[in-house]
């Protein structure tokens, strides 16, 4: 008989309660199965009644069956883990989303709190000083070191450019404040233009602010809106200044000499030649004085250009109220939300996979440990 036949015969014997197979070996196995079945332990009546009652009552908790000590901690621990995962995800998301705008929008405020005191040396030949990032430069200007540390007699021509963002409906007010800040710090407005309306809102200001007041003036200007960008350039004009000053001294000395010679001139021809030379020298002096005046003006007053921009989302000309703007905003919000979800998943998925792997390993280990009881 095959294995299947034998097992079928055993099952038949168990069902019928008797061994009837013709094959003596199979019948013996049937009898063995019946003995095994008949020898099965049976529960006592008292135990059966007790367990029946517990089943009827829905297994009420016995006083001795206390939950394990760690069971009450499970929910708080799970909640803390969940919150931790969400916070990490949101933190990563916020970091990622604020990347490009953080360099611009918060530039002013970050510069204001920056404590960097590094300074770049001026170029020896009077060339222009390379433009630096706004926060560094602003902090240098505020620390009073400027472009020529340790050289107070240096003549530096400074230029600052700042892009300020302001809501469309506050554009005019901010423009007025730019002018007010300039006057307050002893400066003046060289030129300005402000536009508001459906075609677009914005403004441009060309300001001159005393070099000693640039630092507080920039701080006040930055406080008027969100600083999108800020840059600063400096040019050392000391050589040109010194040259013009020396030439002016020489020209004045020459004029004094010519005047003395004119007083003692013996002939009319000689006197005429001296007068012509005096006219030339006088013109040179005037030119040099004008040049020195211009250089002083440029170094005593910093050139500050301020560009006013409508804040993103205000739409400038559209005013931000159209269906397209709303759809655009909704799209931005969806993208941001998807980014947050993605970052949360980036943290939660690996943790979940590790937890799943740990759970599987624990189950396999537990199963093997249990099976070891049979060995």
């Amino acid at each position, binding site marked *: 008989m095959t294995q299947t036949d034998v097992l079928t015969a055993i099952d038949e014997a168990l069902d019928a309660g008797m061994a009837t197979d013709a094959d003596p070996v199979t019948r013996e196995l049937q009898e063995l199965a019946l003995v095994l079945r008949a020898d099965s332990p049976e529960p006592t009546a008292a135990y059966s009644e007790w367990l029946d009652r517990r089943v009827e009552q829905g297994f009420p908790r016995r006083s001795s069956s206390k939950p394990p000590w760690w069971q009450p901690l499970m929910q708080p621990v799970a909640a803390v883990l969940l919150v931790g995962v969400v916070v990490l995800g949101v933190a990563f998301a916020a970091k990622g989303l604020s990347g490009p705008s953080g360099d611009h929008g918060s530039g002013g405020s970050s510069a204001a709190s920056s404590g960097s005191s590094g300074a770049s040396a001026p170029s020896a030949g009077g060339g222009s000083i390379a433009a630096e990032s706004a926060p560094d430069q602003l902090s240098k200007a505020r620390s009073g070191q400027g472009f020529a540390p340790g050289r107070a007699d240096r003549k530096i021509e400074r230029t600052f450019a700042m892009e300020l963002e302001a809501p469309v409906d506050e554009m005019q007010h901010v423009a007025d404040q730019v002018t007010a800040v300039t006057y307050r710090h002893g400066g003046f407005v060289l030129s300005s233009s402000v536009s508001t309306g459906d075609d677009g809102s914005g403004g441009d200001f060309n300001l001159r602010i005393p070099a000693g007041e640039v630092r507080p003036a920039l701080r006040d200007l930055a406080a008027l809106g969100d600083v999108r960008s800020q840059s600063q350039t400096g040019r050392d004009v000391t050589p040109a200044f010194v040259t013009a000053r020396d030439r002016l001294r020489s020209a004045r000395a020459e004029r004094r000499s010519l005047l003395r010679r004119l007083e003692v001139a013996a002939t009319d021809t000689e006197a005429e030649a001296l007068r012509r030379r005096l006219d030339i020298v006088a013109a040179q002096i005037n030119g040099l004085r004008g040049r020195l005046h211009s250089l002083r003006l440029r170094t005593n007053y910093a050139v500050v250009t301020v560009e006013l921009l409508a804040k993103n989302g205000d739409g400038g000309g559209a005013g931000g109220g159209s269906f397209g703007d709303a759809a655009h905003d909704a799209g931005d919000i969806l993208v941001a939300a998807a980014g947050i979800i993605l970052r949360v998943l980036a943290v939660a998925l690996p943790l979940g996979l590790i937890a799943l792997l740990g759970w599987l390993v624990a189950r396999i280990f537990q199963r093997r440990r249990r099976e070891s009881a*049979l060995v």
Partner: protein
Amino acid sequence: MNEAVVETVTLPAAPPSEGFAELYERTFPRVYAYVASLLHDRSAAEDVTAQAFERAYRKRRSYRAARGSMDAWVFGIARNAALDELRKRKRRAKLEGDPEDVHAPAPEDHADMAIRREIVRAALASLDGRERDLIALKFAGGLSNAEIAGVLRMSESNVGTRLHRTITKLREACHDAD
């Protein structure tokens, strides 16, 4: 062996959807018989059986029909509980004496029947733990080969092969013990 007429345990088929009480009514004697066959200790068997049914009651909503019959599910829970108890007992085995015999002789047993039972019990002792587990699931638990496959997480054909090999080995052990 001579022809034997013995009491059999009826095994009604599980309805597709039933309450816990019906499941308990149907499986309780068999679960107890299986656990007691594994543990050889009446008191421990009672504790483990109660524990198994309590666990099944509390986890009854986690049962999925796709994973097997409800009988196999309850026997899986009982088997885990029994194996845990066996492990505990192994650890403290040296501190205790032999466990009591759960197979109390029936008063109406004929002498030759009693002898036969003793022979079978002695032969069972020669099997290893996994073989005794298989015999207990089949004959004390009254499970079909498919249900045993579900409990032990192996194929039905593998269960059939192992069962045939084990009962043949048991028959030979009976001859040796006779």
